[in-house]
């Protein structure tokens, strides 16, 4: 069986610092997989390795059948690997639908169209509206991003990633910075993510992790400490030690 996302022995070191070592993951299609770990565990580096922002020192990354280790970030997106950012990385002066249109146009190949006015790109506009509908953001269609509530901006982050029609979706701390009052919408959005999309969360928020993850990988100091279903991880004493104060 081909996994949706697979890494074999992925590693990255900067000079003497080994940020990530020997990470091997295998995510089946449709999986909901979480990566947790204390600060400095290498989660951000891992994401950058997966998305192509960093070149690995060793190991390989596979998206479905394709070996994507040498591909640029935008090439990986075109193959079906999309991500959200931990800190909102949107276009603050555009409206919500304009942001999503940017993503949709490129996904549909219209990004190179230098002749048709965007206002006439009806198929793309409809597709963008569809994405917004999925995330219940239709009413915010014409709101300028910087005027949105933070929680809604997080939803736009997800909308942008979904607009790329990914087979694998990387959510980088989707709940980061979202006040409790706004987290319901976020949970609903994550729950409503299409079943055939494989979702990899990197998360701190245990609420989300235990709510949505089917399997959890624990990353400590750049390597995998352990991996398993949520109940098993919750009971694991080494994990508790890592999180609750044992000096590793």
């Amino acid at each position: 069986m081909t996994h949706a996302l697979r890494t074999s022995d992925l590693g990255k070191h900067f000079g003497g610092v080994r940020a990530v070592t020997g990470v091997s993951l295998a995510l089946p299609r449709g999986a909901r997989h979480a990566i947790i770990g204390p600060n400095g565990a290498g989660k951000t580096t891992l994401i950058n390795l997966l998305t192509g922002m960093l070149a690995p020192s060793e190991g390989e990354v596979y998206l479905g059948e394709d070996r994507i280790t040498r591909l640029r970030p935008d090439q990986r997106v075109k193959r079906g690997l999309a991500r959200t950012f931990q800190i909102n990385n949107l276009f603050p002066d555009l409206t919500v639908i304009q942001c999503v249109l940017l993503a949709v146009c490129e996904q549909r190949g219209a990004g190179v169209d230098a002749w048709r006015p965007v206002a006439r790109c009806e198929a793309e506009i409809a597709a963008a509206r569809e994405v917004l509908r999925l995330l219940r953001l239709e009413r915010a269609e014409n709101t300028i991003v910087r005027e949105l509530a933070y929680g809604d901006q997080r939803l736009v982050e997800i909308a942008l990633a979904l607009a790329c029609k990914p087979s694998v979706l990387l959510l980088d701390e989707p709940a980061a910075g979202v006040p409790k009052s706004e987290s319901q919408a976020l949970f609903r959005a994550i729950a409503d993510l299409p079943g055939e999309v494989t979702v990899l969360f990197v998360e701190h928020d245990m609420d989300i992790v235990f709510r949505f993850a089917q399997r959890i990988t624990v990353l400590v100091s750049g390597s995998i400490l352990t991996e398993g279903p949520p109940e098993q991880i919750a009971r694991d004493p080494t994990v508790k030690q890592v999180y609750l104060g044992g000096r590793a």
Partner: protein
Amino acid sequence: MSTAPGIVRIVRFPWHEAVFWLVLAAGFWLWPKHLPLASQVLIAGLFTLSYDLILGYSGILSLGHAAYFGIGAYAAGLLAQGGWGEPLSGLLAAGACAGLAGFLTSFLVVRGQDLTRLMVTTAIGLLLFELANRLSSITGGVDGLLGIEMAPLLGAFRFDMYGRTAYGYCLAVTFLLFLGVRRLVHSPFGWSLRGMRDNPRRMLALGYPVSHRLIAVYSLSAAIAGVAGALLTQTTQFVSIDVFSFGRSADVMVMLIVGGAGVLYGGLVGAAVFTLAYHYLSALNPVYWQFWLGAFLIAIVLVGRGGVLGAWARAVSALREKHRRTVTQS
């Protein structure tokens, strides 16, 4: 169609834009004695429009755009000097040469941050100037090329002493290219340029091959700059290595900022203001011109940019705000 209210930017030609171009077309009657100057304004406007594509819309800081203007100017000049005086084909050839040069140099410019781009573009401009200077046997150096004679435009319109044909020629070329750029700016590609300017990292994460698209727009911009340069050569029947000067690259930046960067008409308005100011003021004393130009630049930056069109937009929206307030109060 109104299915996209939040998205629609003006696509059809609004009346005030049409008026703008009609006034320009009426130039034959409005300023018949100043047609050569008006042609200069149009040429500068086209050059600045090309620069707006890379600076205003794509965020590429360049201080060497005159390189492509110069290549176009000399391509047209050398062609004419060599006996090929047909204007339109010369124009196309010049644009193609400049576009090719833009393409070849774009690889150095699209990678790297602002400082690198500044340095690379400045260096390219200086390099070409130096090159043109060295090859003065071909380029004529500071004295320029001799013997440029243009054949009649479209076989019928001779380039006359009053600059009538030249003006019509510049106006037509500028208008056509402007229309093309206008479409580009409202297209998905044009939108993506602004995305790449504001957040290239995000665009990468959306699947945009940012470098490739920037290479495309840079090459296009170079081609348009080359066309502007060729227009200058063909309408004045003269070209010297001045076309490559750093001053010209710096001037185009000023013109764009004065008019408003990232706004379609910014280049044209800024070029008009700058060229006319230069024409009437610098004759007084070039040192004073440079001094006050510098002071003006500093003032613009401190007071806030957007240029003439930005100030205009602010004034209009302020008036609207005032009107709205008085309406709701009454």
